[in-house]
C-alpha cells in the first residue's frame, strides 16, 4: 500500500479512529498491527517475516549489548549483531548483483563456469528498517540510548507505517520516547498532519508525476537524443526526484502527526545549498546523518593520523557505500563516488577558500553565495545523470553528448505532450487552463509559504479557501498513471 493509493485513503482514517477509540495502553498495539497490515498489503509474505525477525533479533541483541561490561565482549556483541543485520540486507538486496559480477569475473578466467543466478527478491523498506536497527544497536553500544524494555514499543519503533517504506530513518532517542509517552488528542496536530499530508500528495501526484512526462521518454531511450533534450531532461529529473521524495516525506510526516508523533524532517531546500557538504545537510537528512555518524565518523577517527588524506578517503568510502545503499547497480556506485569525490576535494581547498575570498574582498558578497549555489546545483544535477540512467552505457552516452550541438530539440518538444494533454483532459479549453494555472500558482504559493504552522492560525475563510484549493488541484491535476515513489526501490 502506498500513500497515494486509494486503499490508503481508507486505511488511514480507519486506523486513526481505532487509535482514538481504544484505551491508551493499547494504542501502540493498534499502530503495530496497522503497520504490519500496511506492510502485508505489498503481498510479499517474506517481508513482514524479515521485519519481525530483525525486530526480535535487534531487541534481544540490544539488551545483551546494554548489559555487557564495557570492553571486548561488548564490542564483539555489537559487531556480531550488526553483521547479522547486514547479512540479511546483502542476501535480500545484493545477492543477484554479487553473483552477476562474480560470474563476469569468473568468466574472464574460465569459460563456461558460472554460479547459478538466484531469483531477484523484493526488498522494499528493508534497507530503511535495517539501518534503523543498526543505529539502535550502535547507540546502545556508545551509551547514547538505553535498551528498550518494552518489546511492543520497540516493534512499533521499527515498523511504524508512516516511515516504514521510505523513512525517515528514525533514531531510537527521537522516536521511542514519543511512542512511550501517553497520547493526548491535540486538534492542531491533526490539522497540521492533514495539511502536510495533502501538501505532500500535491507535490507527488501533481508536480513530480507531471515532470516525469518530460524525463522518462528521454531517459528510457537516451540514445535517440543528444544535447538540449538530455540537458532539459536531467534538470527536470532533479526537480522530479525532489518533489517525489519531499512529497512522500511530507505525507509520512503528516500521517505520523495524526497519531501525535513528530518524525524527522528530511529536507531543507536542498537545491539552495552552497556546497556539497551543505547539500548533504539539506538532502535526505535522516539518511545523510546516518551514513556520516555510523560510517564516516568511525573511519575518519581511525584514519585521523593521515590528516586531510584520511578525511578525504573516509568521505569517498562513505559515499561509495551510500551509492550501493541506493541500489545494487554500478550507476549508483558512480553517483556515490562522484559525491564522495566532490566532498573529498573540498576538504583540501576549504581552508584556503575563505582566506581567498577575504583577500579579494568578496567574502560578504551576496554574489559569491549565489555563484556557489549555482555551481553546487549544476554539479548535483550532473551526478543525477548516473542516478537516473538505466545503465552505465546510457549514462556515458548522456555525459558525452550533453553539449552535442546537433541536437534534435524539435523531437523533444513533442515529448510528453500527448501524455500531458491526456492528463489534463478534465480541464477542457485553453482559457480555462490559464485561469486554473493562475489559481494553482497562488494556492501553491500560499500553502508553501504557510505550510508549517502559520496557515493554521489564519482566519477560517482564508484557510478553507486554501484547503479546498489544494484539494481540487489534486483532484483535477493529479496524474494517475505513475503511482510509485522513486525511493521505493531503495
Amino acid at each position: 500500500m502506498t500513500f497515494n493509493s486509494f486503499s490508503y485513503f481508507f486505511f488511514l482514517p480507519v486506523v486513526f479512529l481505532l487509535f482514538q477509540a481504544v484505551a491508551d495502553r493499547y494504542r501502540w498495539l493498534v499502530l503495530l498491527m496497522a503497520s504490519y497490515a500496511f506492510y502485508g498489503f505489498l503481498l510479499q509474505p517474506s517481508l513482514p517475516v524479515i521485519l519481525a525477525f530483525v525486530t526480535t533479533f535487534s531487541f534481544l541483541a540490544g539488551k545483551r549489548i546494554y548489559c555487557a561490561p564495557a570492553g571486548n565482549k561488548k564490542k564483539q556483541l555489537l559487531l556480531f549483531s550488526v553483521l547479522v543485520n547486514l547479512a540479511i540486507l546483502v542476501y535480500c538486496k545484493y545477492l543477484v548483483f554479487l553473483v552477476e559480477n562474480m560470474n563476469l569475473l569468473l568468466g574472464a578466467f574460465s569459460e563456461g563456469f558460472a554460479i547459478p543466478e538466484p531469483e531477484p527478491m523484493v526488498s522494499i523498506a528493508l534497507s530503511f528498517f535495517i539501518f534503523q536497527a543498526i543505529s539502535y544497536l550502535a547507540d546502545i553500544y556508545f551509551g547514547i540510548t538505553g535498551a528498550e524494555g518494552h518489546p511492543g514499543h520497540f516493534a512499533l519503533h521499527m515498523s511504524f507505517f508512516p516511515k516504514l517504506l521510505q523513512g525517515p530513518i528514525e533514531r531510537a532517542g527521537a522516536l521511542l520516547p514519543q511512542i512511550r509517552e501517553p497520547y493526548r488528542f491535540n486538534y492542531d496536530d491533526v490539522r497540521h498532519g492533514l495539511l502536510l499530508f495533502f501538501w505532500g500528495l500535491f507535490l507527488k501526484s501533481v508536480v513530480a508525476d507531471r515532470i516525469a512526462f518530460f524525463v522518462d521518454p528521454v531517459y528510457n531511450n537516451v540514445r535517440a537524443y543528444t544535447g538540449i533534450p538530455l540537458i532539459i531532461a536531467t534538470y527536470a529529473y532533479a526537480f522530479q526526484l525532489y518533489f517525489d521524495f519531499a512529497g512522500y516525506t511530507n505525507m509520512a510526516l503528516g500521517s505520523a502527526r495524526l497519531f501525535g508523533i513528530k518524525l524527522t524532517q528530511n529536507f531543507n531546500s536542498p537545491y539552495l545549498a552552497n556546497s556539497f557538504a551543505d547539500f548533504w545537510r539539506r538532502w535526505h537528512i535522516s539518511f545523510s546523518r546516518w551514513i556520516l555518524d555510523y560510517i564516516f565518523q568511525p573511519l575518519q577517527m581511525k584514519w585521523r593520523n593521515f590528516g586531510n588524506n584520511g578525511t578525504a578517503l573516509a568521505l569517498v568510502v562513505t559515499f561509495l557505500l551510500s551509492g550501493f545503499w541506493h541500489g545494487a547497480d554500478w550507476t549508483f556506485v558512480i553517483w556515490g563516488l562522484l559525491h564522495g569525490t566532490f566532498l573529498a576535494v573540498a576538504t583540501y581547498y576549504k581552508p584556503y577558500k575563505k582566506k581567498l575570498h577575504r583577500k579579494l574582498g568578496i567574502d560578504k558578497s551576496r554574489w559569491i553565495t549565489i555563484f556557489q549555489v549555482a555551481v553546487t546545483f549544476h554539479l548535483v544535477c550532473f551526478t543525477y545523470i548516473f542516478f537516473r540512467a538505466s545503465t552505465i552505457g546510457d549514462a556515458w552516452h548522456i555525459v558525452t553528448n550533453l553539449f552535442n550541438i546537433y541536437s534534435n530539440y524539435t523531437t523533444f518538444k513533442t515529448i510528453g505532450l500527448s501524455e500531458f494533454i491526456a492528463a489534463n483532459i478534465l480541464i477542457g479549453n485553453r482559457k480555462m487552463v490559464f485561469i486554473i494555472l493562475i489559481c494553482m500558482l497562488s494556492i501553491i504559493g500560499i500553502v508553501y509559504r504557510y505550510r508549517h504552522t502559520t496557515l493554521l492560525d489564519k482566519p477560517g475563510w482564508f484557510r478553507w479557501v486554501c484547503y479546498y484549493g489544494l484539494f481540487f488541484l489534486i483532484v483535477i491535476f493529479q496524474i494517475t498513471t505513475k503511482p510509485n515513489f522513486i525511493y521505493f526501490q531503495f
Partner: protein
Amino acid sequence: MKNLSIQERMSEVFRDVLDNDAIILTRETTADDIEEWDSLSHITIIVAIEKEFNVKFNLSDIKPLRNIGEFEDLIVLKTGIKG
C-alpha cells in the same frame, strides 16, 4: 594561552576549524546551536581539540557527549587540567 580557560581554548579551536569568529561556547552549547557544527565537521573538531590539549579520545568517549559542558568535563578527566 596559559591564562585561557579550557572553554576559551575550546572556543578558539571551534572558531578556527569552523572558520566562524562569532562562536562563543558555553557549557550548554550543543551542535544544534552552531550551524557549521554537523556530522561532517564533528570529528575534525574532535581531532583539533585532541591536538590543542595533547590528548587522545576514543569514539566511545565522544559519542555520548551531549553538550560542550560534558566535552569540557571529558577533557578535564583525560588531561587533569583544571577547568
